[in-house]
């Protein structure tokens, strides 16, 4: 079993790198390209 603190840092990593970082960047690009097409 993963320890509580390890799970905490796993969630932190996913949030900062994948949600705030990569995800937000891709959404910004997608929104702009949608605006252009509209």
């Amino acid at each position, binding site marked *: 079993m*993963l320890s509580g603190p390890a799970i905490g*840092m796993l969630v932190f990593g996913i949030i900062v790198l994948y949600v705030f*970082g990569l995800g937000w960047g*891709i959404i*910004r*690009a997608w929104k702009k390209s949608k605006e252009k097409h509209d």
Partner: protein
Amino acid sequence: MGEIAAEYWKRRKGFILAAIGSAIGLGNIWRFSWLTYRNGGGAFLIPYFIALLIVGVPLLILEFLLGNYFAGSSPKVFKKIRDNLEIIGWIAILDVFIIGTYYAVVLAWVFDYIWLSVVYAPQLASGSLSASKLFSSLVSNPWLVLLGLAVTWFVTWYTVFRGVSEGIERASLVAIPLLWVLSVILVIRGVTLPGADTGINWYLSPDFSKLAQGSVWIDAFGQILFTLSIMAAPLIVYASYMPKKSELPNSAWITAFANCGFSFFFGFATWGIIGYLMSLNNVASPEALKIPLGGGGLAFITIPTAMGRLPGGPSVAAVFGLIFFIVLWLAGYTSLISIIEPVYAALRDKFAVTRRQTVTAVTILSFIIGLIFVFKPGMIDPVDFMVGSTNLVWIVLLEAAVAGFYLGVKKLREYANPYAELKLGAWFDYLIKYAAPISMAIILFYGLWFAKSINPVSLIVMVALLIAAILVTGLKWRTEFEEKKKAEV
């Protein structure tokens, strides 16, 4: 000399994937998770994330803007900023050229391991051959390494030879998604092994007291610089192939987070496997395994050792060994492309040479110089200390300082913002003018202070590089600068 037609990426996706390919390299696989473990586990993610935000992303955006604004390679960019700064660009180009010569040799070992890990899977599984013995017999057999080197250079040459959209873009569109898919397979295998949770606990359990140590912060900032391929050369050239009025800041953001996200993700494969080895050997800490937990040792000794002991016998060992080394090779190959392209672009900008002849000549020269590292692999470390580490820090320091204080970051911001999905505010100026140079200066000072002694080989390489940079800077421009002068007369 005839005019050389400008080349461009066909799609923005191609540019971003090529930039991600440049950034993701061997270090993402064998350095990041080891640094994390060594520097307080999951707590290391905090300085790493801070470094990414205040230095990594801004410097990546800066390199994209410089390349696109001045539409050329580093020497052209620096010369356009000011005539007598051209030499900085050449130092950067020669530096990456030397990196390519030994990086390709390491990739040659990786290439050989793709088939060695299959051929020797039964011996590794039965324990009749140890992974460390396999590695030492490879390194001490120059002919085998030469084979891997020839294949690695041939594929790289062919990719760059084909041009920006037909070669680099097409290769990136295949290699980067494949790299991710194969990595997903490795991570799934890693985290489902018996004992994987123990290893991942070691990888991620935070020790926040470590954040009080300066060395942890230095490691985080240094890793961000190296992992993002910020070297004042590859990404400048890649961005110069985007048309004017292109979106750049958000592309840099996506590149940076895709790169760092990959490192974080791959750590689960590595530490799942280390946890598995810990449970097999019934030891309480990773150190007790007495095998390398990072660097080349992780890839060439620890992983093959673990593969040989995977549940399912030699055929499973062969499949996962094959996948691991293909992933490693793809990561390195897409980086090696981004090392050769800026060398060509710099020579094209100054001497109006053609792609095919120049790329062929640069590749052959790199291969020949690389023979030194094939026959004397011990030379890699001292050369890397200078060109792959120390030089990059001060070159980027100069790049940020020149852009910040001489060119003016505001000018670049105003150039980018009308087309940007991520608007650059005054914060960008402060990060480039102060945060980046100060961070680089501290990393440089710390690195040299703790180097204890500097190998004479490092110094010889440094002197040779500087002499070459002075000589090439002194040669006449055969392209637009000369034409401009003629027009003025």
